[in-house]
């Protein structure tokens, strides 16, 4: 422009002014291009089993008067829960991850949606996001970048194996249920009142209720023994940890554990789970106490979905530490692919804690006879491999 003024060439002055205005306008535009832009992923389901499909809608909205001339959204995605057409995900420098890329152009206050069909390919807890939004000015001179959407998680449960295949007796798969009567009651947890019967202790009489009704009433307490089942999972696939991991066997162990908890819940047990493995991004063994919430099955399967091959503790020592916390009369299912003499000794010790114990071994060699312990031997076979 200065040159144009000095040389007195109006064309140069006009050209320079136009460039100056355009660049200024472009700079102003790009500064505001991502203001008021929202990006959402809407999953129909957040959990599922391998092989199932989940509908995904990505929704982007421009909540301002200034249009967005171009908008590129690159969403970091796990291939394990990617779209059915794998080529939709652009390659990423991280293994097993890709990028879901969408390009939009939005007018003022416009909302746009795109749908995808996701396929759940393998067990795991998969993180999605964050999304990177790139936009710029009308002329493509400047660019602006922003991260949105945060992390979201999709859970793929382990698939279930047919329960009949596990070798439990069809009639009473998890052992004797001698009595449904309340043998032990917790006096700190009253659950109601009923009429007095001659065999009732006087200490149980609820005097205010008796006065109100004119008839002797006694307190009823919650039972301390219920139908409780605890699945104890050993994630080791070899006797010595330096031998490594047998991935197919580990997957099968997790599938069997999932089948046991599913069957236990359907049989009316309060099911819990302990494992000497750890969840992704954690370094401690996990313990899910037995519960009767409607969400309990989902909680258990979600934990199994996240189990990694990292062994955090020796299984025998782990059992000795964890099992005494389980309530009296509970059924313990010890699930392992490694049976050692130490395990047999540990189970005998645990038997003294008045728990019914079933050992389900997936090891090749049959486990030794352990007095008082029900043993089921179902060696892992080639056809069970993925």
């Amino acid at each position: 422009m200065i040159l144009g003024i000095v040389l007195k060439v109006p064309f140069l002055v006009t050209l320079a002014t136009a460039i100056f205005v355009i660049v200024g306008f472009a700079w102003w535009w790009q500064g505001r291009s991502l203001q008021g832009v929202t990006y959402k992923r809407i999953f129909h389901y957040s959990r599922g089993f391998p092989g199932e499909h989940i509908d995904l809608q990505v929704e982007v909205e421009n909540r301002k008067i200034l249009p967005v001339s171009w908008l590129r959204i690159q969403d970091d995605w796990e291939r394990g829960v990617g779209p059915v057409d794998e080529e939709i995900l652009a390659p990423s420098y991280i293994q097993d991850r890709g990028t879901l890329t969408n390009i939009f152009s939005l007018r003022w206050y416009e909302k746009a949606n795109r749908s995808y069909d996701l396929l759940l390919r393998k067990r795991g807890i998969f993180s999605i996001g964050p999304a990177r939004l790139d936009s710029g000015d009308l002329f493509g001179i400047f660019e602006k970048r922003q991260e949105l959407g945060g992390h979201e998680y999709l859970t793929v449960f382990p698939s279930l194996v047919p329960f009949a295949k596990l070798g439990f007796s069809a009639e009473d798969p998890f052992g004797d249920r001698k009595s449904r009567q309340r043998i032990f009651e917790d006096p700190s947890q009253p659950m109601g009142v009923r009429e007095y019967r001659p065999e009732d202790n006087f200490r149980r009489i609820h005097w205010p209720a008796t006065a109100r009704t004119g008839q002797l009433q006694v307190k009823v307490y919650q039972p301390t023994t219920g139908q409780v089942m605890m699945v104890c999972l050993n994630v080791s696939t070899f006797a010595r940890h330096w031998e490594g991991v047998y991935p197919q066997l580990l997957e099968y162990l997790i599938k069997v554990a999932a089948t046991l908890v599913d069957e236990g819940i359907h049989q009316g047990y309060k099911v819990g789970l302990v494992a000497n493995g750890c969840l992704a991004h954690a370094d401690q063994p996990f313990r899910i106490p037995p519960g009767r919430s409607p969400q309990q099955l989902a909680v258990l399967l979600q934990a199994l979905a996240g189990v990694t091959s990292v062994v955090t503790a020796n299984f025998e020592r782990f059992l000795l530490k964890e099992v005494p916390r389980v309530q009296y009369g509970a059924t313990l299912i010890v699930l392992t692919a490694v049976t050692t003499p130490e395990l047999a000794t540990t189970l005998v010790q645990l038997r003294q804690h008045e728990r019914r114990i079933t050992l389900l071994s997936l090891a090749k060699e049959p486990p030794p006879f352990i007095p008082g312990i029900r043993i089921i031997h179902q060696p892992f076979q080639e056809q069970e491999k993925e």
Partner: protein
Amino acid sequence: MIESISRKIRENIQKVIVGKDEVINLTLVGVLCEGHLLLEDVPGIGKTTLARALAASLGCSFKRIQFTPDLLPSDVTGINWFNQKAMEFEFKPGPVISQIVLADEINRATPRTQSALLEAMQEKQITIDGLTHALPRPFLVMATQNPVELEGTFPLPEAQIDRFLLRIEVGYPSLNEENDILLRFHANSDMPEIQPVTNPSEIIQMQNERSEVRIEDSIRDYIVRIARSTRDNPEIQLGASPRAAIALYHSAQAWAAIHGRDFVLPDDVKFMAPHVLTHRLMVSPQAQLRGRLPDQLVKDIVESIPVPVEN
């Protein structure tokens, strides 16, 4: 009239509850419809304070029942006791014979005791030893339950859940609101005393006015279609009852009236639908396992039904 009195009540309640305009408006919907409210949220966010403040603002009699596992139905309804001096039976009313009843932690009582509220909630009367006693008007049950704890609780039966007009989640205060709470109650946590800003006869008059709020045929049809589609959805095991459709109709009228309108918009129906329907739906186990929640289902249903528009 409804709008101005609602504003007065809201401002009065906000002397003890910071913010929460929407929650207070929803409780007013319950008052205008004479429908019962289920306050469901974690402890310590002001559910009981809200109920007390509402009762005080309305100038109504208020009783609180702390539900426990050994609570008896007669502890709720009252009993006939023998007066030895007079040599006759006398009726001793229970706490339910009050205009506003706070049933605190309702799911801690046995289903038998919970059911003692059924007749009171639906018929606005109680029957003891074959004698029926009418309850004072307006009658409103505000029940609270903690969704986190499950051990030692008895989930409400479907028949009773259906009798609650709305389920309200109070929710945590926002950052600014929490700062205001600390600022307001920095010296002590005693609540200031609340004076009534209306009276029961005025409330009954407001309830009558609410019933005159106009609903176009197309919006009525919209409500019916929402209710019916909850029954046809494969992800829902138990859909909304006709009582739920009536509840949605009335609460949309009340919401419109609180906002100073004498006619209902489709937006009123859309806003009220999650509050009216969510607690009444039973999600199928398969959908529940896959992480579907009732509020998502209601949202999807409401969005899938075309909104009535003018020709």
